[in-house]
């Protein structure tokens, strides 16, 4: 039988160490909403989401109350809209109407975000893919809760450099469209290599075409819990350190698994996966960077950071895998800058640079995330940053992503405030030596040799 110390430990994690379930994400297939008439597509999408997701928020709150565990976000992911709107949309503005429908229905069912305003173009772009991509700046400027992602490469297909080059422009345009709001549109836009079909985290969530009609995916969190557990093993060797992380990750993930199963049962929607990612928030004590410091670094970014992060990421997975029947999504440690107070401190102290962050993304999910860069950064430079990051993903057979925010009108030394879970960030310097001739070549980078496993 459960004893009082175990109960107190759990409640301490929740109350003092920010243990929470970061998100319950309901994946909804919109494949049956396809129509050649734009008005009809919009109507179908509205009706489908409204029907399937009507109880999501209420059920989430019910679970929160019964188990006493906060569920921070309730979200929806949908089939990439480039596939759904392709038959009906003849110009980018047509796609924007779908974005507005998504925004409207998401707000009506009460979710925090809806993800899947997406295109999968890892090898090539269809006309519809390109129209959707070109509609992104306007769509993100004119909606509030719609998130967009574009998969630009994979280990199997290589990197679509035409699309990478285009996304450099699109990110700049998105920044311009939302420049009165510190270019916040870019915080809802992410590009991927090896994007997973079942990611519950925003901005990159979409409901892959290989998924069932509807599915529940859950993302857990708990950097504060890991940090507190590590405080008790200061000075111990790596074996003790790793065991402690593993055990803590197990406990955190079990809560996610429980919530996922309950949500699935109550909503009558199959359980998909638990995403094991350690997701930070700007709240004090909810930071992945603080864990790195607890492992023994003065600041995130100091020599040893990549090794510490590699160790952390691997132990989180090892502990988490046993705690859940199905794991998936991104599953690793997130290292967003603006969403993690420890990362922000590290940047302000001069300990953490874009280049070090790039190295860190080699050993953890997901990538260069929530990084504010000067507004005058060239589109080709952004494309170059994307190409570098995607190459890491392609060669290492892992997911990588880029979510950078060129803040129009601001430059290095200034700060930008996004608010809420998105936090705030100092603008980081970018290497401005030209890569124009490289990214303007056109075509695609072939798949690496080790992708030919057949």
């Amino acid at each position, binding site marked *: 039988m459960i004893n009082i110390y175990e*109960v107190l430990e759990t*409640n301490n994690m929740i109350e003092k160490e920010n243990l929470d379930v970061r998100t319950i994400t309901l994946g909804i297939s919109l494949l049956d909403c396809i129509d050649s008439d734009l008005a009809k597509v919009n109507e179908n999408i509205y009706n489908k989401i409204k029907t399937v997701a009507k109880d999501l928020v209420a059920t989430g709150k019910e679970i929160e109350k019964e*188990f*006493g565990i906060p569920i921070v976000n309730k979200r929806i992911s949908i089939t990439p809209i480039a596939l759904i709107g392709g038959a009906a949309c003849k110009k980018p503005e047509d796609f924007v109407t779908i974005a507005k429908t998504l925004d409207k229905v998401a707000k009506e069912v009460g979710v925090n975000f809806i993800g899947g305003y997406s295109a999968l173009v890892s090898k090539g772009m269809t006309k519809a893919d390109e129209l959707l991509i070109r509609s992104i700046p306007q769509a993100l400027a004119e909606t509030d809760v719609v998130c967009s992602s574009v998969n630009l490469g994979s280990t199997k297909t290589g990197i679509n450099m035409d699309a990478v080059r285009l996304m450099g422009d699109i990110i700049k345009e998105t920044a311009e469209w939302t420049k009165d709001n510190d270019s916040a549109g870019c915080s809802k836009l992410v590009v991927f290599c090896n994007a997973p079909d079942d990611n519950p985290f925003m901005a990159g969530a979409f409901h892959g075409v290989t998924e069932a009609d509807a599915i529940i995916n859950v993302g857990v969190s708990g950097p504060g819990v890991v940090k507190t557990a590590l405080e008790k093993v200061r000075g111990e060797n790596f074996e003790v350190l790793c065991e402690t992380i593993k055990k803590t990750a197990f406990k955190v993930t079990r*809560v996610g698994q*429980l919530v996922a199963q309950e949500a699935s049962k109550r909503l009558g929607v199959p359980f998909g996966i638990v995403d094991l990612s350690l997701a930070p928030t700007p709240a004090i004590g909810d930071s992945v960077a603080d864990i790195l410091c607890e492992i023994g670094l003065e600041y995130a970014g100091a020599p040893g950071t990549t090794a510490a992060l590699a160790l952390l990421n691997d132990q989180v997975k090892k502990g988490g895998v046993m705690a859940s029947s199905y794991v998936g999504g991104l599953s690793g440690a997130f290292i967003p800058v603006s969403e993690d107070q420890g990362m922000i401190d590290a940047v302000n102290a001069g300990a953490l640079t874009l280049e070090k962050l790039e190295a860190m993304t080699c050993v953890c999910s997901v990538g260069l995330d929530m990084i504010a860069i000067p507004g005058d950064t060239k589109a080709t430079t952004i494309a170059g940053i994307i190409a570098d990051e995607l190459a890491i993903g392609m060669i290492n057979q892992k997911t990588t992503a880029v979510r950078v925010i060129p803040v129009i009108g601001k430059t290095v030394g200034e700060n930008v405030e996004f608010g809420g879970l998105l936090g705030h960030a100092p603008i980081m310097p970018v290497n401005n030596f030209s890569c124009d001739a490289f990214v303007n070549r056109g075509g695609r980078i072939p798949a690496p040799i080790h992708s030919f496993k057949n």
Partner: protein
Amino acid sequence: MKKTIITVVGKDTVGIIAKVCTYLAESNINILDISQTIVNNYFNMMMIADFNNCTKSFSDVTDELDALGAEIGVVIKCQREEIFDKMHRI
């Protein structure tokens, strides 16, 4: 049978257990086990309770216990047992 864990945390004072138990009795909630300890000078009590014949909804009980806690000056939480079971038992 679904069990519920009720925890009471706060500064020790006369009648905490009495008040909580009275409320539970009125709501027809059966107490299966009680344990208590003092951690960092704080009174910690845990009850394992059976809600099967409870006359109120779980959500109402949570809210009312919350209010009762505020009245006594302690924090009362009411959580389904599974969250602890899952976390601490393989």
